[in-house]
């Protein structure tokens, strides 16, 4: 009777020894993601504020100055430059010094006084879509608001429709609240994939893997024995990240932290299995590193971490279902921001577990065949 997990205990014992012996190196590799989190958490603000704006105020009278004050008070525009002709206005945008240009024509105040429609030209640099979008929204809103006030001032009626938007879950639109739960998935993936990939490729380089294959160790026993210690380390890393997120960046966690911890296990399992699969292909640590990097960009761009998955073209939307980070970002944002529970998220956890099992079994088969073909 062949035990498919033969050698698991021995490999587990040895792997924990490796970890203990070289704990310093390991600890640094675990600290680096925390440092990255500090950089990104403090450095990145996803809200668009204080856009550099160039102004050509050809009118210059009270009405035009009032309009500029309103733009300034929106917190969206930083009136940074004032010019006196169209050429300088264009130039400031082309050179990249300003993202938005506002031209108030010479007859602005006259037209307002005569109840005619006054036009204001807003030039927007479209090279950054989030900046352009925000500039359009705010200028249009200010224009509408200004017009309404003037129209209403001459009649007694009130606002016909009053939209009252209310943002759930992150009312202040604090960037870290939105940003860090997603970042958790990316950082965790980075660290854990490398852990298993390197651990096995190192054995290839030293020739110890070949030695193991001449013993009764079975591929599954070997791989699980390698995987389990690193699952603990990955979990420890997750705890550090969540701790920093909660207590240093003050991101409130609306759901159950224990559920988050539990659902992180299948995700760590997936990325460790991915590392193992990489190690079945890679012949050196440098090679493993290249392959691991291949997996990182899709995890950032196709997981909904930066761009919403729903707006992707059909093909990439389907592709995003094969990116493990998609599920885990849904889990972290769900639990941390929306207070989602087990009934909302068990499917994501199951999907991750199945993906991890598939990767691990594939890797085990590859190792089995490699033994045969080496």
């Amino acid at each position, binding site marked *: 009777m062949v035990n498919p997990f033969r050698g698991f205990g*021995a*490999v587990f014992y040895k792997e924990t020894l490796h970890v203990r012996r070289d704990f310093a190196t390991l600890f640094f590799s675990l600290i680096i993601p925390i440092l990255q989190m500090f950089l990104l958490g403090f450095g990145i603000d996803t809200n668009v504020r204080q856009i550099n704006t160039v102004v050509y105020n050809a009118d210059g009278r009270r009405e035009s100055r009032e309009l500029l004050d309103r733009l300034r008070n929106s917190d969206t525009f930083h009136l940074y430059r004032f010019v006196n002709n169209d050429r300088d206005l264009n130039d400031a945008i082309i050179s990249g010094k300003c993202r938005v240009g506002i031209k108030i024509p010479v007859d602005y105040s006259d037209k307002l006084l005569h109840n005619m429609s006054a036009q204001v030209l807003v030039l927007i640099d479209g090279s950054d879509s989030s900046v352009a979008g925000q500039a359009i929204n705010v200028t249009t809103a200010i224009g509408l608001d200004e017009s309404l006030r003037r129209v209403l001032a001459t009649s007694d009626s009130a606002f016909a429709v009053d939209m009252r938007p209310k943002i759930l879950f992150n009312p202040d639109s604090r960037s870290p609240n939105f940003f860090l739960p997603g970042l958790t998935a990316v950082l965790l993936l980075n660290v854990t994939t490398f852990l298993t990939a390197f651990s096995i490729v190192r054995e290839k380089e030293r020739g110890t893997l070949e030695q193991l*294959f001449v*013993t009764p*160790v079975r591929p599954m026993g070997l791989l699980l024995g390698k995987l389990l210690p690193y699952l603990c380390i990955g979990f420890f890393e997750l705890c550090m990240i969540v701790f920093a997120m909660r207590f240093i960046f003050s991101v409130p966690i609306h759901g159950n932290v224990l559920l988050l911890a539990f659902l992180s296990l299948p995700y760590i399992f997936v990325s460790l299995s991915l590392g193992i699969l990489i190690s079945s292909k890679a012949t050196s640590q440098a090679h493993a590193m290249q392959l691991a990097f291949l997996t990182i960009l899709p995890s950032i761009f196709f997981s909904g971490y930066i761009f919403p998955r729903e707006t992707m073209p059909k093909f990439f939307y389907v592709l995003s279902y094969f990116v493990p980070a998609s599920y885990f970002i849904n889990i972290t944002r769900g639990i941390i921001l929306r207070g989602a529970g087990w009934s909302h998220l068990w499917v994501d956890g199951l999907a991750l577990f199945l993906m991890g099992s598939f990767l691990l079994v594939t890797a085990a088969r590859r190792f089995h065949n490699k033994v045969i073909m*080496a």
Partner: protein
Amino acid sequence: MTASDQPAISANHLVRRFGSFTAVNDVSFRVQKGEIFGFLGPNGSGKTTVIKMLTGLLPLSSGEATVQGIDVQADPESVRENIGYMSQNFSLYTDLTVTENLKFYGRIYGLSAERLRERMDAIIELNGLGPYLNRLSAQLSGGWKQRLALGCAMLHEPKLIFLDEPTAGIDPVARRQLWDLLFELSAHGITFFVTTHYMDEAERCSHVAYIYFGKVIADGTPDALRELPEVNPPGTYRVEISAPHVTSALRFARTVPGVRSSTIFGQSIHALIDDHLDLDHLRSQFLNNNVAVAEIRPLAPSLEDVFVELTYRHQAVQEAPRG
């Protein structure tokens, strides 16, 4: 046939092809229990491929092999339970201590805690690892690494141990000590399958096979090989010629009629001479031509002579059909 007189290894017509390349071409040999079997051959001749086939790592393209009475293809797992293997780079975990390495391999073979302790004590005693138990294996010298690796390979008391170039890159004293250890273990009935490049090691084996480009071209005890008719063609004898200037002596020797082949061995020349050219005649040939020689004496062929001779003959056979 009873289990006790079954050979430790029986390889019958092993063939291994990689695409169109035949790495192992119809290799057959038998290793009896308790032998130290030396498996020799140049790099790339198929030595490692044969080991991989015998340990169940590589399927056979054709042929069959039994190791310790177990069919390698039918049950490679059982084969691996019953053999020890030490690779040429010793394959130790350098960041683990001597004890930890031993414990790891003990657990791999599923030894109980009690048995593991017993076996570790026995191996530490036998290999003299006592003073180094808590040292990282990275800090051991080549010789001690090799003893530890051998210890790891025999924890589970295999009756057959494969040693792939066990002495590559270690000092002569450690080399000597390893061979002493192998003889001692072999006396206890353990069979060794050893690959090596050192001819002096080949001379110590109780049974030697030489593989050349995938074919075994010599197989027998060292003494039997030395007496092969191909190596000692009728009407010839071997001499050792010592000379102060070996290279010029060799150049001259090759022009003397009756000298069939000649090679430099350190400070002397080994030559195969036709019977009609006796020793005195040969000596006078050198003196008459002012080539200094110190001594010329008859010599039994060494294993190296055997392998050189057989390799030439094999090459001649290979090339004959083309020419």
